[in-house]
C-alpha cells in the first residue's frame, strides 16, 4: 500500500556554525493511509517544523518528503500549493481563522479558492459544520466563538477539500479540558472514518487516542510505537472528559 506520507533523512537547519540549530535532524517516517499518528516531545524538539515540512509550508535543508506517492520537497511553490489544496489539510494551534468572515464563510473559503462553485462550496461547508457540531454557529464570526468552537471550524475548513491527510499542529494547545475532549472526539470520528491524521501534541490525552505515537527530541525521532487498540482506549480517555 502507498504511504500517505513518507519522509526520508529529513533535515531542517537554521543558522550556521556555532549558532546552527538542527530543528529536524535526519528523520525517517512513513505514515500509511488511514493511520492516525501523534508526534510528541518537549517544546522546541522540532515537532511543528516536521509537520510544516510534511505539508510543504517550509522547505527542508535536505532529505525527501513524499505525499501520496509524489515527492514534494523540491517541488515548485505552485506544485506545493496544489498539494495543499488537493491532498493536505492543516489545523493550527491558534486557528488562523479570518476575523471578518463567519464560520461558514471561513469553511467554504478553501473550496472557493479551489474553484468549487459557490453554492456547492456553501453546501459542503454547511455539511461539514454539522459534522463538527457547529451547525448552530455557522453565521457567527470567530470573535463570537469559544476556543473549542473556533478549532472545530478550523478542522471543518481543513477538511472541506476532502484532503487525504490532515495535519494538526497542537490542535488542543490553546483549549481548556472540556474543549479538548470535544476536539478529541472529533478526531476519533475522523480516524474511524479512515482519515489519515498526523497530530503534533504534547498533550498525553491527545496522544493516547492515536494508532501510533512518534517521539522526538532535539530534532530527531527517538521512539516510534504502535498504541494499543485505539477503539477502546480512545473511548476510555474521552469518557473522562465532560461534553462540551
Amino acid at each position, binding site marked *: 500500500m502507498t504511504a500517505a506520507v513518507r519522509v526520508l533523512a529529513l533535515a531542517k537547519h537554521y543558522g550556521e556554525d556555532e549558532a546552527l540549530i538542527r530543528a529536524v535532524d535526519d528523520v525517517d517516517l512513513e505514515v500509511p493511509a488511514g493511520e492516525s499518528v501523534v508526534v510528541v516531545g518537549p517544546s522546541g524538539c522540532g515537532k511543528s*517544523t516536521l509537520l*510544516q515540512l510534511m*505539508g510543504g*509550508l*517550509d*522547505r527542508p535543508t535536505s532529505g525527501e518528503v513524499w505525499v501520496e506517492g509524489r515527492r514534494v520537497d523540491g517541488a515548485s*511553490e*505552485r506544485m506545493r*500549493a*496544489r*498539494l*495543499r*489544496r*488537493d491532498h493536505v*489539510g*492543516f489545523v*493550527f494551534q491558534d486557528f*488562523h481563522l*479570518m*476575523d*471578518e*468572515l463567519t464560520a461558514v*464563510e471561513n469553511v*467554504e*473559503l*478553501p473550496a*472557493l*479558492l*479551489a*474553484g468549487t462553485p*459557490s453554492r456547492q*462550496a*456553501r453546501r459542503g461547508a454547511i455539511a461539514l459544520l454539522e459534522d463538527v457540531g457547529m451547525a448552530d454557529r455557522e453565521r457567527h*464570526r470567530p*470573535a463570537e466563538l469559544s476556543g473549542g468552537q473556533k478549532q472545530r471550524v478550523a478542522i471543518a*475548513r*481543513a477538511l472541506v*477539500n476532502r484532503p487525504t491527510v490532515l495535519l494538526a499542529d497542537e490542535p488542543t494547545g490553546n483549549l481548556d479540558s472540556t474543549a479538548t475532549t470535544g476536539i478529541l472526539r472529533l478526531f476519533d470520528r475522523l480516524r474511524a472514518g479512515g482519515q489519515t491524521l498526523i497530530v503534533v501534541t504534547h498533550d498525553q490525552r491527545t496522544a493516547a487516542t492515536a494508532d501510533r505515537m512518534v517521539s522526538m527530541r532535539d530534532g530527531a525521532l527517538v521512539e516510534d510505537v504502535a498504541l494499543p487498540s485505539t477503539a477502546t482506549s480512545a473511548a476510555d480517555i474521552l469518557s473522562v472528559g465532560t461534553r462540551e
Partner: protein
Amino acid sequence: MSRLRLCLRLAARDVRRRAGETALLFTALAVAATTLTIGLVLHGQTAAPYDQTRQRTNGPDVVAALFPAPNQTVTPTDRARLREVAAHPEVSASSRAFPTTWTSIEAHGISGVAEVQGRDTSSSPVDRPQVVSGRWVGRDGVVLERAFARAMGVSVGDSVQLGGRAVPVVGIAVSAALPPYPQLCTIGCILDQPGWFSAEPGLVWATRHRVTGLDTPQQPLVWFQYLALHDPSAAPGFVQRYDNGGPPAGRPELTAWQDIAARQAEQLANERIAVAFGGTLLVMLALATLVVLVGGRMSDEVRRVGMLKAAGASPGFVTGLLLTSYLAIGAGAAMVGLAVGRLLSPLLVGISAGLLGHVGGTSVTFTNAAVVFGAVLGIVVLAAAVPAWRAARTSTVRALTDSGHRPRRHRLLVALSARLPGPALLGLRLTARRLRRAALTGFSVAVAVCAGTVVLFAQSSLHAERGNAGGPADPQVAQLHTVTTALTLLLAVMAMVNLVFVTRSTAVDARRVLAVARTVGVSPAEAAVALGVSQLVPALIGIAAGFLAGAALFHALSSSHPTTPATAQIVGLGLLTVGITVALTAIPARWEARRPIAEILREN
C-alpha cells in the same frame, strides 16, 4: 538633562529602526514644503520684473492715446489735445506724439497682427525701449518686442511681411510703456479687419514714415504720447481727475503705469493659480501620506508606548519622545523643501520675455521660511498628537496588547466575491478589510490622474488653438504648461510615495491572510495577484474619478472652449497609472509570496 539625552537617543534609534518609513515620510513632507515655498516665492513677486523694466527703459507714468471717432481720422487740431495734457503742471516730461496702426504680420509661416508704432530714430525723453539684440529702428528695418518676436520665431536679420511688404528685422527690444505680448491690446486697439476679432497683436517699432504708409480707412492712425509725472505714484489720481470730464469725445484716453503693471501681473497670476491648485493637491496628498503612515504604525507605536510606560516612562516623557522623532523629520524636510523650492521657483515662475529682470530665487524671506517651517511642523505635530493622546490615556497593559483595528466585515462583498476566481476573490476581500486604506489609494491615484488630465487638456487646447489660427504661440499658455507639467510631476512622485506606503501597509496587513490562504492551496503567484487586485480596484476607481475631476476642473478654469485630448492619450494615462500601481504592488507582493508560510505564521 539626562532625560533629554535619553529622549534624543531613543528618538534617533526609532528613526533608524524605521529608516524606510522615515525616508518616505521625509519625502512626502519635503515635496509639500517645496510646493509651499514656490507658492510663497511667487506671491507678491509679480511687480518686481515690471518695476525693473520700467526703471531701465525710463518707462512712462501715464500713456495718452488719442483714438479717432468712428469713420474719421485724428486731425492736427485733435492732436492739440495731446499737447494740452503734456503741458499739464504735474507732467515733468513727455515723448513726442507718435502715430500707431495695426496691420498683418507674417514670418516663417506664422501669421499675426502687429501694432506698429511710428517712432523717432533718436532716443525719446520718456520710454527708451532697451534693445536686447540688434539696434533701434531706422529707415531700413523694424524692431520687434521680445515676447512677440519669440512667439513669431523671429530674430534679428530675419524678414517679416508687414502689411504685405517685406521688411527686415533690425532689432529686438523691451519696453514698459505697454503690456508685453499677448496683453498689448488691453490698453486699446482698432482691429476692424475680418478675422482679427480674436487676434492678440504684438508690438513692432518702425519709423513714422513707415507707419503713416500703413494706415487704411479700416485701420486709421491712433496717436500716442508718453508722459512722466513729477510724482509717479500720483498717476492714478492724475488719470482720474482727467477722466472726470466724461467720455473721451476727442479727448485722449489716459492709462496709469500701475494699470499696465497690473495687466502684466496677470500672467504670473495664472501661474500663481496653477501653483496654488497644484500646491493644494500636494498638501492634501502629504496629509494622506501622513494618515497612511500614522495609521500603519499606530499599533506598533502604541505597543512601544506600552513598553516605555511599563519601564517607568511618564506620559509626558512618551509624548516628548514621539514629538522629538516627528519634529526632527519635519524640520529636516522643511529645510530641504525650502532649498529645493528656492532652486525651482525661477524655473517654474518664468517671467514674460517682454520684461527685463527676474522673479529671482533669492526671495525666500525669513517670513517665507517661518511659514514653511510652521506649516510642516504643524502637520507633524498633528500626526504625533494621536499616538501621544492614546499613549496618555491607554493603560500600560492595553497598550502592550494593542493589535490595531479589526478588519471590517462587508457581507454583500463577501457574498459577491464568492463567485469570482480565487485571486480576485481574495483581492476584493483584502480591499474590503481596510476600506479607509483603499480610499487613500484611490484618492492618491485620483489626484495624480486629475493633474495629468488637466495637463492633457491644456496641451490639446493649446495645440488646437495654434493649429486653427496658425498664429504665434501664446507665451502665457506655454509658461502655464511648464508650471502645470512640473506640478504634475511632483504630484505623480507624491502619489507614488503614497502608493508605496499604502501597498506596503496592505502587504503587511495581508501577510497572515495570504499565508493562511496559501496553506489551503493558493499559490504564491495567486497570492501576489490577489494583493495586486486589492490595489487595482481602488486605483481603477481613482483613475476614473481623477479623469472626470480633471476634465471638469479644466472646463471650469479654461476661458476658451477646451479640446478633449485624443482617446489614445487618455487610455495611455490610464494604462500608465495602472502599470505603475501594478509595478509598485508587485514588489512587496512577490517578496511576501516568496517567504515560507511557516515563517509568516510564526511571526503573526
